[in-house]
């Protein structure tokens, strides 16, 4: 018991020592996750609309994008953007994207493919009469989308969107493999520096659990609000 207590104190002291490192890692993780989720959601919605309303060629192109993006593992996407896309960008512009930017792009691609697919599913699940009723009262295409279709589709999208957001957060740990100094890197460094491994890893698990499960609970809360009608 005393042994446990003393190792806990020791760990808390170590955490305090590593606080700046851990905090800056956490900020990086949050930055990457939030930007990737925002970008992924925006593009996902656009691609989803293209899948529903686009012409034949556009639909096919987006479908290929979605299928390819979903067929490539997240880590491979990160490496591909980091090595391959970066190479192309350098040749075209002479500018080298940072590892962080590459990571965000890769995570956003991942999320956009998932979100495009579920947007398509959600819109197509709505009865045709909904958009026809919108047309009948003289709404434009955009007005129909924002006032009629989206509010209904969002209830369908929300649960899967929450899962995607959680996956992005999980995916930020992969950025450690291209040396982005995010939270997992900070944990590894702190653990090695203080030579306390088990506790730091357990601490990391708890932090990630709180974030990812927190997103899930928040999603459920939103769902409950949207399910009123």
């Amino acid at each position, binding site marked *: 018991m005393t042994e446990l207590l003393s190792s806990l104190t020791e760990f808390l002291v170590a955490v305090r020592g590593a606080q700046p490192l851990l905090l800056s890692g956490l900020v990086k993780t949050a930055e990457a996750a939030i930007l990737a989720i925002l970008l992924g959601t925006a593009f996902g919605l656009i691609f989803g609309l293209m899948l529903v309303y686009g012409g034949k060629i556009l639909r096919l192109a987006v479908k290929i994008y979605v299928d390819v993006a979903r067929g490539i593992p997240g880590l491979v996407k990160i490496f591909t953007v980091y090595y391959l896309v970066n190479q192309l960008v350098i040749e075209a512009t002479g500018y080298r994207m940072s590892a962080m930017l590459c990571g965000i792009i890769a995570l956003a691609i991942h999320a956009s493919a998932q979100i495009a697919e579920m947007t398509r599913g959600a819109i197509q699940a709505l009865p045709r009469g909904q958009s026809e009723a919108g047309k009948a009262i003289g709404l434009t295409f955009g007005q129909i989308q924002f006032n009629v279709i989206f509010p209904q589709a969002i209830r369908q999208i929300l649960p899967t969107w929450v899962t995607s957001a959680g996956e992005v*957060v999980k995916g930020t740990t992969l950025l450690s493999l291209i040396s982005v100094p995010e939270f997992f890197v900070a944990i590894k460094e702190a653990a090695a520096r203080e030579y306390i491994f*088990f506790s730091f890893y357990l601490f990391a698990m708890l932090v990630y659990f709180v974030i990812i499960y927190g997103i899930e609970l928040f999603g459920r809360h939103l769902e409950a609000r949207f399910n009123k009608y």
Partner: protein
Amino acid sequence: MESYHFNWNVIWRDWDALLGGLALGLEVAVYSLAIGMIIGQSCAFMMTAKSRLLRVPSRVYVTFLRNQPPLLLLFFAYFVLPRMGIRLGREESVILTLGLYAGAQLAEVFRGALVNIPRGIAEAGKSIGLTTFRVNLLVILPIMFRNALPALGNTFISLFKDTSLAAGIALAELTWQTRRISTETFAVMESWITACVLYVVTCTAISYALSYLENKLRIPR
């Protein structure tokens, strides 16, 4: 910076290593799925049990593991467990980690498949004289398994994709091999294009194979 010259020879030279890496990933995914299915089915029964003693621990396990980054779990298994005297090889670490992780995901899948079975089916089993255990084994489990088939297929594809994480602990699967080639030869384009194509083709093939299997195993209607 001079413009890029394609040199596909570096890929052909290492073609066997790439395919070997792909096969290793598939092998790891199969073993992980096996572990995940055992854990998932056990947890599903525990989560729907009457006793709190069964429900609470299974619920905690599933909720905690489902919300973990798998890479963190993998590093924990490979780098931290040895410090506590539990030494696992690279492949074992990946299989164990992905198996435990998939178990948590599959627990939810199986639980859903389980609660969808009408109560009367189990009652019918009891009424012909089967004990609860044998009702579960002979009637409920096979139905649950078939209900869960489509989700099981998706989980397998996810698992296969997640085997790429093993590159993080230098297991020589496809992603690791690709990265090795790309850094050794600077054939960045060739190597990553090849990896992407291999992954997409494999995932598509698996997905077709699974839907064929699903059609065969599905309860006819």
